[in-house]
């Protein structure tokens, strides 16, 4: 194995970094009660939580793509006034503790919140509903997609779009036929990351949406609750989330490597 010209000692911190993440994950796997795994994963509460997580994450990811792609392209290609502020605000959920995100949502969409009160007058009450879960997930996952697509759009530049426009294609056609196919790999990996983030969303959901089986209790909330009385079930569900997350990350990496290899 070569270190590509890097000093050999870099291997030590690099390995320590891998161990820092790898050992706890491996530790979880060692605690998995394999014999009871099928029973634990197919209990009604587990299945409800899994199904709810998949549904809400899919809905939130769709929302994230619809809102995030235009935002990313504007940030990458235009001199949007206050772009720096916009970018900071949009990326904020990446670094905020989830409970802060939850409080932010609560003070906005909550019953006594800024918008919540208006919505309630209109007869829309999202307190303790699945909609609240989707909102919380979209809130925390949006930056992942925006970062991914904006970076790719910046790197790709506008060459192809300019050519297409001179050939007579309208802006929407260019966006649909040139830009989106060009950015497809970044869009796909950004979408996968956003979906993974939605699946893992915990703090904002707990603070903002509540926890009720089949309505707002997603997989991470179910794990948190099971841990109180049945640590084995919590570990089994954790394994499920680890596997799902790993599959999503592998999917994004595989695409990246193929693209790099093609160049």
């Amino acid at each position, binding site marked *: 194995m070569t270190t590509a010209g890097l000093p050999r000692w870099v291997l*030590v911190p690099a390995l320590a970094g891998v161990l820092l993440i790898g050992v706890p994950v491996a530790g979880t796997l060692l605690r998995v009660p394999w014999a009871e795994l099928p029973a634990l994963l197919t209990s009604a509460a587990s299945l409800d939580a899994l199904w709810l997580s998949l549904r809400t994450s899919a809905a939130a990811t769709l929302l994230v793509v619809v809102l995030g792609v235009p935002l990313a392209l504007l940030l990458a290609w235009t001199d949007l006034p206050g772009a720096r502020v916009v970018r900071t605000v949009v990326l904020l959920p990446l670094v905020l503790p989830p409970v802060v995100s939850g409080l932010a949502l609560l003070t906005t969409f909550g019953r*006594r919140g800024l918008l919540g009160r208006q919505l309630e007058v209109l007869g829309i009450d999202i*307190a303790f509903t699945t909609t609240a879960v989707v909102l919380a997930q979209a809130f925390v996952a949006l930056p992942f997609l925006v970062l991914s697509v904006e970076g790719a759009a910046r790197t790709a530049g506008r060459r192809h779009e300019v050519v297409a426009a001179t050939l007579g294609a309208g802006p929407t056609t260019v966006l649909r036929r040139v830009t989106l196919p060009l950015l497809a790999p970044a869009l796909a990996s950004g979408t996968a990351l956003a979906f993974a983030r939605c699946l893992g969303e915990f703090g904002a959901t707990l603070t903002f949406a*509540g926890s009720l089986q089949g309505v707002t209790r997603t997989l991470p909330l179910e794990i948190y609750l099971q*841990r*109180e009385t049945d640590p084995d079930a919590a570990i089994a569900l954790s394994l499920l989330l680890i596997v799902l997350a790993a599959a999503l990350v592998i999917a994004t990496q595989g695409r990246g490597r193929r693209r790099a290899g093609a160049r």
Partner: protein
Amino acid sequence: MSRRRALAALAVLTLGACGTGGGAAPAPTDELTVLAAASLREVFEDLGEQFTAQHPGTEVTFSFAGSADLVAQLDAGAPADVLATADETTMARAVADGTVTGEPQVFAENALTLVVPAGNPAGVTGLDDAGLAGADLVVCAPQVPCGAAAQTLAGNLGLALTPVSEENSVTDVLGKVTSGQAEAGLVYSTDAVVAGDAVEVVPVAGTEEVVNRYPVAVTSDADDETLAQAWLDLVLGPEGRDALTAAGFGTP
């Protein structure tokens, strides 16, 4: 203590240095570490000041969390001298784990209470259908002590509660009520005291019969059992009883 030293040694090894660890000797003060249920925070911090006054040179460190968390932490080797939980079931688990010694002693009781946001926006008058009048009720999940108590209460009253959310901790329930997100919530009487003007208590007959009893015990790993026992004596004594009563607890 040995675990802390092991951690320090691990950190030293990881950094690639070649010392033997343990170079920096701990300050020569006595340290008492108390793991306590989250609902005991105010009372115990108050009693902690009295304790340091009575035992000069002693430092009291607290870790407040859900009772089940504390028992799990203790089982995983968290260094502590005293454990105080919010119910006898979780304490029994610590006894079974062998992480506490001696007979746990009950020092406080906490009754369930129905609270509503200030102004009672949904006009809640009780816990039955008519009393709730369609209000969004939030309770603890049956898996945690406050949820088990809520189920007992519902059973006693012959009611089937249909909450809009089953939270993991009583503080989460209280937060949902104080923020106005929920229109009613079942919490402990101490939580109603903590929340002050942010909530109103709706009297429900039968709640006073559903109480959680708080036991306290010295851990098997206690560095100084006499000091740990002194904490128990303070909590069970008149000073402890005064502080507990002021915070809304009942005392046995």
